[in-house]
């Protein structure tokens, strides 16, 4: 009896094993990327693949000093941050309006905006390029920021809409009776409560913008080009062949800030996700 009580229930053991396996499937490519970035060319192609080798930071040293990487990293930071912030401001207010304010045709309008997410980006890339060129806006930060907002605003809008729907309506009503206007209730009561959800949405938006390749490839050239474009360039180097160490080194540099950021705000990230999902 006492022994049976000590033993973990079989279901729990299975869940743990399953969780570990899923984690390995997801984490191994990342691990392999980081590992490869510290290898020399000969170690990269050893068969069978080796976990033990003499590490080198040659790839980092080479690419960090190359003129086109650092500016692109800065571009990525600027574009990801600004497009995410812009989309959060616009998308949150739009999501609130869709969730709470009775507007004729709001449901159709919301669905149409969501539908725009269904259009393959490649179909939009060419028209977007033509528009940008006609406006003389190619290869500029603002162009990418606006282009990213076309998919980030709907994303934020729908996430925040469902988050707002999960909040009891009486909170705003109470605030409005207590002396707030609709705007006051939104800014003084709803926004502070929504902070976890807002923060997690902001992080996801930044990550989406951070790793975006297609629009950056089409709309930028040199000044506003981002890291994913650089990676694509290295991978598609037809003259020298793909430099795998360089590729994985730049890849690691791209991923690390996102991971650090996510770890820092993990507490709110999880709270935000859980809040939106379960709060009745």
């Amino acid at each position, binding site marked *: 009896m006492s022994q049976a009580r000590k033993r973990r229930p079989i279901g729990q053991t299975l869940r743990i094993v399953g969780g570990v396996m899923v984690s390995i499937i997801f984490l191994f490519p990342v691990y392999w990327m980081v590992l490869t970035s510290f290898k020399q060319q000969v170690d990269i192609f050893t068969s069978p693949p080796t976990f033990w080798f003499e590490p080198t930071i040659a790839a980092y040293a080479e690419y960090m000093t190359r003129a086109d990487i650092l500016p692109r990293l800065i571009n990525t930071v600027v574009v990801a941050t600004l497009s995410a912030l812009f989309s959060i401001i616009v998308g949150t207010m739009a999501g609130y309006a869709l969730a709470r304010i009775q507007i004729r045709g709001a449901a159709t309008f919301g669905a149409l905006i969501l539908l725009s997410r269904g259009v393959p980006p490649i179909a939009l890339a060419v028209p977007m390029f033509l528009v940008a060129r006609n406006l003389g806006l190619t290869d500029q930060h603002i162009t990418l920021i606006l282009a990213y907002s076309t998919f980030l605003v709907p994303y934020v809008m729908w996430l925040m809409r469902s988050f707002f729907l999960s909040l009891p309506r*009486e*909170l705003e*009503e*109470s605030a409005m009776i*207590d*002396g707030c206007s609709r705007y006051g209730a939104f800014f003084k009561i709803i926004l502070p*409560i929504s902070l976890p959800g807002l923060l997690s949405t902001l992080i996801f938006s930044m990550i989406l913008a951070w790793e975006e390749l297609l629009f950056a490839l089409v709309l930028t050239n040199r000044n506003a080009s981002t890291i994913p474009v650089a990676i694509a360039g290295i991978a598609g180097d037809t003259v020298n062949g793909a430099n795998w160490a360089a590729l994985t080194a730049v890849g690691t540099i791209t991923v690390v800030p996102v991971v650090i950021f996510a770890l820092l705000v993990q507490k709110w990230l999880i709270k935000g996700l859980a809040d939106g999902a379960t709060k009745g």
Partner: protein
Amino acid sequence: MGTVQIRNARKSYGSVEVLHGVSIDIEEGEFVALVGPSGCGKSTLLRMIAGLEEITSGHILIGDRIVNDVAPKDRDIAMVFQNYALYPHKNVRDNMGFALRQRRVSRDEINVRVTEAARILGLEELLDRKPRALSGGQRQRVAMGRAIVRDPNVFLFDEPLSNLDAKLRVQMRSEIKELHQRLKTTTIYVTHDQIEAMTLADRVVVMNSGVIEQAGPPLELYDNPATLFVAAFIGSPPMNFFEGDLVGGTGLVMGDGTRLALPEADPKGRQRATVGVRAEHFDLAEKGWPATVSVVEPTGSETLVMARLAGDVVRVLIRGRTAVQPGETIHLRPQRGSLHFFDAAPVPEVAQMEDVA
């Protein structure tokens, strides 16, 4: 001025009218309960008074001002919601002081008023807690505290006790009544629980399907229900009803041919009627309406006897205790002057909801 006048107020959602022209005059300091089954329009009416729902037609006056187009914040009202709607990111003190801060009351004044309200409600120890660290009853008190620090013209309560367990509900009910006797602020209180309405209010307004069935002091509604609906809705245990033909003035012939002798005739002289008798208005006698006892429920001070009469359940409330046993046949004699006559109609299915929620 804490008077509220509702004049022929209507509410439609699209083409569906849910409130069909309701008029009530509420006096300064009065405690009015709006009671009725769910979907009767009582909450909608309250929200219209609060300014949370538009008024489709008609007028609502608070004091002598028509408030149809006045924003909720400018109506000088306070409202307690069923789910309390406490601001989760603010502690008790800031929850209670929020409305005053919105009105730019000085910090010292806010402090004085919050402390006073907390003292009245016994919340002094909890002022620095967040709502999530409070029990249901405490949250309810904070919601009331938030309303009373305002010192508004009118209190609006929307089913404030429904989320509490039965014991706490009874306790808070007394507290609300005491609070009203102390503050004498005009109060409009929505509930589906007729006991709550009866015990709290100076005047009870019974609503059904978007109209007012009857409005009056609680005991008047109990003693003289104007409609079959009110008769069925007010009172616990519910009133007993017998439908049949009135023969020779004081005979009631029911569907299955059972003939019951009535102690008095219908003052309106109907041919067919539904006759109501409250459970406590039966005497056990040697001769009377024969009924077979099915269940006996003693509660100490009184005993509820359920019996079958011509296929219907009859509830009889006996003061004190009784030796009546299940299976036994008893003879019921309605007391003189206790009969309620209504036009013959099926008894409305009124859920006695005191056990729900």
